[in-house]
């Protein structure tokens, strides 16, 4: 018989077990019965804490995703430049992934399953990047700080670059990124991106950490 736990401990245990199962098999691949079985409790116990499997899945996602407050904090601590804000919000996102690679697996599973709710969730996680890049490039171009560039395309390209690197490093364990940690990869990609859009970092921004470029 399962050890009696306090409600908060029980909830945390349910979230931890559900996260591993969802990241391994996706939302549709896991039943409430299976989660309960892994926990050694009855499904009724799960329903005491979560009204439905969907509610549990949503809480797992919110639990492991980076928080909006972190983005606010990044902006408050930044020098306000495009370079510094982009570098800081990218690091926050990457930190959340490095803290828990199951997040990426859940993102991939949700893409395969095509659920509107989860697709929306992950799209919202990328919006700070895409909207920020698109608007900022538009402003920089209007100020003649950079040549005219398609901001939407650039934003999507950046998102694609970061996603590819994270999947290669954390899921596929590609040797291409073997010698770089996630923050070095982040700095490398941001440097590449700035070059591509013709943006020169202001003096006050911290210089890129450099690192060996992956082949």
């Amino acid at each position, binding site marked *: 018989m399962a050890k009696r736990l306090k409600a908060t401990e029980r909830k945390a245990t349910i979230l931890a077990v559900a996260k591993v199962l969802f990241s391994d098999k996706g939302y549709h691949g896991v039943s409430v019965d299976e989660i309960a079985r892994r926990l050694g409790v009855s499904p009724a116990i799960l329903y005491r804490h979560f009204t439905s499997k969907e509610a549990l899945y949503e809480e797992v996602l919110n639990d492991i995703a980076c928080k909006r407050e972190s983005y606010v904090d*990044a902006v*408050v601590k930044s020098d*306000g430049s495009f370079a510094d804000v982009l570098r800081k919000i990218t690091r926050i996102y990457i930190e959340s992934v490095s803290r828990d690679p199951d997040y990426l697996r859940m993102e991939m599973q949700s893409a395969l399953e095509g659920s509107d709710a989860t697709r929306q969730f992950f799209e919202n996680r990328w919006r*700070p990047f895409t909207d920020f890049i698109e608007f900022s490039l538009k402003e920089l171009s209007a100020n003649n700080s950079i040549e005219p560039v398609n901001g939407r395309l650039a934003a999507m390209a950046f998102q694609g670059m970061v996603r590819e690197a994270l999947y290669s490093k954390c899921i596929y364990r590609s040797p291409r990124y073997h010698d770089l940690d996630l923050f070095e990869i982040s700095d490398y990609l941001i440097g590449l991106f700035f070059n591509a859009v013709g943006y020169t970092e202001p003096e006050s921004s911290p210089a890129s950490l450099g690192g060996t470029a992956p082949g």
Partner: protein
Amino acid sequence: MSNFDMELDARGLNCPLPILRAKKSINSMTAGQVLRIIATDPGSVKDFEAFCKQTGNELLGTTQDGAEYQFNIRKS
């Protein structure tokens, strides 16, 4: 809502842009002045609460009118 000294139109912008623009506006203001921000991102309610908590500026009030949110922030 009370009077304000500067208005920031952040409609149509999503996190982190309203916060970034608010930060820039507040930097150009003097202590005691009030910035009014109009935004449409529902997440901006929590964002500006966090912003004021982290910066020490005072959130005087938040109102919602349909899909629009208004925030009055006094620079500390």
